[in-house]
């Protein structure tokens, strides 16, 4: 998604992982970890 913001023309694109995000169900969390699924915060600015 970072790249999509960049390609759209946004500047100052920044991202950080949301600390503590997890799924309630262990099986969902395990699958998410296997695919590198994570929650992120993103900020960007239109020039």
């Amino acid at each position, binding site marked *: 998604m970072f790249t999509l913001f960049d390609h759209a023309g946004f500047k100052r694109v920044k991202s950080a992982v949301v600390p*503590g995000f997890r799924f309630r169900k262990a099986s969902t969390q395990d699958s998410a970890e296997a695919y590198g699924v*994570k929650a992120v915060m993103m900020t960007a*600015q239109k020039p």
Partner: protein
Amino acid sequence: MSDLATQESVEQAPLEGVIKGEVLRMYQEVADHPDKEFHFFHGREAAEMFGYEREWLDRAPAGAVASFAGVGNPHLRSQLQPGETVLDLGSGAGLDSIIAGWQVGPSGHVLGVDLNPHMCAKAEAHAALAGGVMECRSGTMEDIPMPDASVDVVISNGVINLSFRKRRVIGELYRVLKPGGRVSIADIVSAKQLSQSIVNDPKLWAS
């Protein structure tokens, strides 16, 4: 659009419709039955997990807090200022819009967009209960029902990942923002390409 892209778009259209329906059903379920357990955290428990201020959660209408289904806290970096116009993309039951309204004050504006018109009505009612004004428009994030260069800040929480056409959505954010406008979103990303069986499973899109 290339022939291949056109073909893929046509092939994905029925699946996109099914997934949109499942997403609508899931978030309506959270709003109607917030006491149920889902495989994601929601309500006050989730909001506290992501650092929402307790004062906000105490002050907001209980229904808006209980139906919260975000994945982070876009307010941590939004730096909203009094008088600004804010778009809450995928405004749901309205908690993020309400908090944004407190930050931009009576001289500012909060506009919500949600796929579900019932959720729009609910969000506006919650905002009114909180003493603020929010206008919510029913529409899609791929065609945001707002004019070009009309908002100062876009906030969004766990919504863009639900779109089949993320490039289009990001382009829409760019279109509706004024020059110098900002985006502060929380969302789900994947480091690996998901298998086709996952992509084709509507229930996983609505997770």
